[in-house]
């Protein structure tokens, strides 16, 4: 089996671009990724494209051919949709395609356009990631679902809003030097605690923003990189995916994310690494509580112990295991269908040493990306390692 390498990464600025079309956003990211890789677009054999709510936001279905055209690609193109894990599965399938020898070069990523809709319509659109009959019609919003998980966590293990506020503050601080981040401003723990409620116990700064943006990665085989003299020092050595019951109420545990447990176990086994080997992680912190659940599923902390990780300084930039040095979804932004690709782009930059926060992980060799859909009915985990 050939090894899959990340030859190039491309991102748009994550933020508010209400007048920019989805096709323009994705083309920007794709061209940047191809330029970063030094791979001619004619060598791209497949496009794996993630998008969640384009049918609602842009009245645009069947987006993959549109995005191939926008990026100047002439190859089979497929859209992947797994809610907020859409780009994660798009990347996973690119890795599997390259490893299987079915293609040497796959462009994978995603795009989401959100700020052109009013907030209540975005809230409604995001809610379709939940079970329509038993959750959405019963009043569950996207923040509300994570609030239900936060309450369940507090009840099962303890913890407080202040612990969560430390997650928000940490990720905002990490975003300060990131040129792609939506919010490059400090948010103190006290700011987070005093923000208005969205779905209690979660308040405004527990939630990621509404974001437009796109991500793209050029995934190549090790042989392609060698024969074409492409610099691709980071390998995707592990990929794993997990699926759980759709509705939160049907899960075995309301304060755990078994789909992410499964995805992490599979990715670690695939890579031949353990949780203790991981030096840096980008995790799906759509809400502060989601980062807590993620670091527990990834095996960095036992259930009930992840809540203190940011507050105790373990996952801060200077901690033993920095989490979300990009700023995370929380501060960098969350264009949902692009996020899974963005996480791997950021992790690649961190491991290559060309990220503005690379200094915090100068010796890092193993990174993990954790991307989740809905209330983690879907989860994708990737292990990245410095290969050269």
């Amino acid at each position, binding site marked *: 089996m050939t090894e899959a390498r990340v030859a190039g990464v491309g991102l748009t600025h994550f933020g508010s671009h209400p007048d920019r079309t989805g096709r323009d956003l994705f083309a920007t990211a794709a061209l940047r990724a191809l330029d970063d890789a030094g791979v001619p677009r004619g060598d791209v054999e497949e496009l794996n494209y993630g998008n969640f709510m384009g049918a609602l936001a842009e009245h645009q279905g069947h987006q993959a051919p549109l995005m191939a055209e926008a990026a100047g690609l002439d190859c089979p193109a497929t859209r992947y949709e797994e809610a907020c894990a859409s780009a994660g599965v798009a990347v996973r399938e690119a890795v599997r395609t390259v490893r299987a020898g079915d293609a040497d070069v796959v462009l994978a990523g995603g795009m989401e356009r959100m700020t052109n809709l009013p907030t209540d319509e975005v*809230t409604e659109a995001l809610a379709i990631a939940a079970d329509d009959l038993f959750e959405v019609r019963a009043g*569950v919003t996207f923040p509300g679902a994570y609030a239900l998980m936060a309450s369940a966590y507090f009840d099962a293990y303890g913890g407080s809003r202040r612990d969560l506020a430390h997650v928000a503050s940490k990720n905002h601080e990490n975003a300060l030097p990131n040129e792609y981040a939506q919010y490059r401003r400090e948010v103190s723990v006290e700011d987070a605690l005093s923000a208005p409620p969205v*779905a209690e116990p979660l308040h405004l700064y527990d939630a990621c923003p509404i974001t437009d943006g796109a991500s793209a990665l050029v995934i190549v085989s090790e042989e392609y990189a060698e024969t074409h003299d492409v610099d691709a020092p980071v390998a995707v050595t592990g990929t794993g995916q997990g699926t759980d019951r759709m509705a939160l109420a049907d899960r075995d545990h309301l304060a755990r994310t078994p789909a992410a447990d499964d995805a992490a176990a599979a990715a670690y086994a695939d890579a031949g690494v353990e949780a203790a080997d991981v030096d840096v992680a980008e995790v799906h912190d759509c809400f502060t509580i989601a980062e807590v659940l993620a670091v527990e599923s990834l095996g960095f902390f036992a259930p009930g112990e992840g809540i203190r990780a940011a507050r105790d300084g373990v996952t801060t930039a200077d901690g033993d295991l920095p989490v979300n040095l990009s700023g995370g979804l929380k501060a960098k932004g969350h264009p949902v269908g692009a996020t899974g690709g963005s996480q791997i782009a950021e992790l690649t930059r961190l491991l290559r040493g060309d990220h503005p926060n690379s200094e915090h992980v100068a010796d890092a060799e193993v990174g993990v990306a954790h991307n989740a859909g809905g209330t983690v009915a879907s989860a994708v985990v990737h292990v990245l390692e410095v290969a050269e």
Partner: protein
Amino acid sequence: MTDRSAGDEVRADGGESRPGNAGHDEWLDALADGDGYALVCPDGHGSLPPRRVCPDCGSTALSREPLPETGTVETFSVVHVPSPEFADDAPYVSAIAEFGPVRLTGVLRGVEPELDAVAVGRSVGAGVEERATDGKPLVVFRPVADDA
């Protein structure tokens, strides 16, 4: 008795109005009439309709079991930023409550929409009431006196 939603001929709306969601619609009607039920397989796994197989074990021998009259709140949230369909309902308490073999998701009424007014473990009954915003049916929990 085998769940009637297993029959392709079931039409929840009687063919008179917009297509409904067969299985789910009659479950909601039953809950509204005080006859709420879960689908239960021989191994005791509970689920909600429409179902053709038990999602836990794959059994197709699903029977209707009445829900207990009283359930227990397992988690809750006070929602301040609603979707448009709940604009006039907010703030409201969103909750998940265990009723025997299943958990239900609904809105907890009869308490102030404040975190301190609710607690995990609270005993509730379940029924169907109208959404304040548009009058559509909504699974609603209301507190009941705890068994002394």
